[in-house]
């Protein structure tokens, strides 16, 4: 009886997925940073110009996107600390998986705490 070969999909587990998430969150934050430097630069144009553009940050759609931005920044920053620990701490590779779940847990808890506060401001009057 022929043995059906297992799939050849690379299964890097937590190490691979943390790397993927770090890249995606990093690229997202980078492009937001470009926009954010430009919108802040409008304070040098006039108070009116800055206020008009910053009002768009308080609309429901952008307000919801800000939750994703905050989550991406938290994950990227904390996972960066995990990468540093893997590089410089002698037990880093042993605990890399546990550290990943700590990063995820802290990110989820912080975003969960921020969400009701932020959405009340965005959707409130």
């Amino acid at each position: 009886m022929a043995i059906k070969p297992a799939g050849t999909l690379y299964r890097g587990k937590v190490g691979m997925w943390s790397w993927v998430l770090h890249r995606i969150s990093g690229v997202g934050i980078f492009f937001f940073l470009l926009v954010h430097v430009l919108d802040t630069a409008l304070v040098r144009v006039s108070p009116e110009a800055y206020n008009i553009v910053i009002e768009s940050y308080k609309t429901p759609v952008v307000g919801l996107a800000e939750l994703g931005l905050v989550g991406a920044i938290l994950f990227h920053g904390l996972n960066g600390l995990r990468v540093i620990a893997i590089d410089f701490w002698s037990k880093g590779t042993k605990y890399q998986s546990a550290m990943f779940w700590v990063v995820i847990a802290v990110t989820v808890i912080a975003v969960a705490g921020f969400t009701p506060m932020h959405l009340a401001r965005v959707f409130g009057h």
Partner: protein
Amino acid sequence: MSVTIEVPNRPRTRKQANWEKYGWLFMRVSGPLLIVLIFTHLVVNLVLGDGIKAIDFAFVAGKWADPFWQVWDLAMLWLALIHGTNGMRTIVNDYAGQVKVRRALTTTLWAVCALLILLGTLVIFTFDPCPAGASAELLASFCPAQ
């Protein structure tokens, strides 16, 4: 069965500085600094007080009237842009196969980075929290026009 590995008869030598190493090190030094800078930025601007609802010209003026926040935001601007651009360069190196494409993208990235650092630095240091001729209701409470 044993595998014989050739013993290198001389160490690898370089004539130039190891920029990849400095880049690698920069990411690990700027990273923790950016965590302090940006996490505080998020708490002050999005959590404390009225959060996003309170942000307008007068809010920014109130912060940048204080040299502490000028230096804070300046450090954030430089470190975040260099950290982000170097990260994008790493990604470009991974996926852009052709030398020409890679060079064009990397050059564009650093040009944009330099331009935004220059713009942001000028904005922070030439900013007037109480611009003459602006309508009083848009200005911070400490402005004479108020």
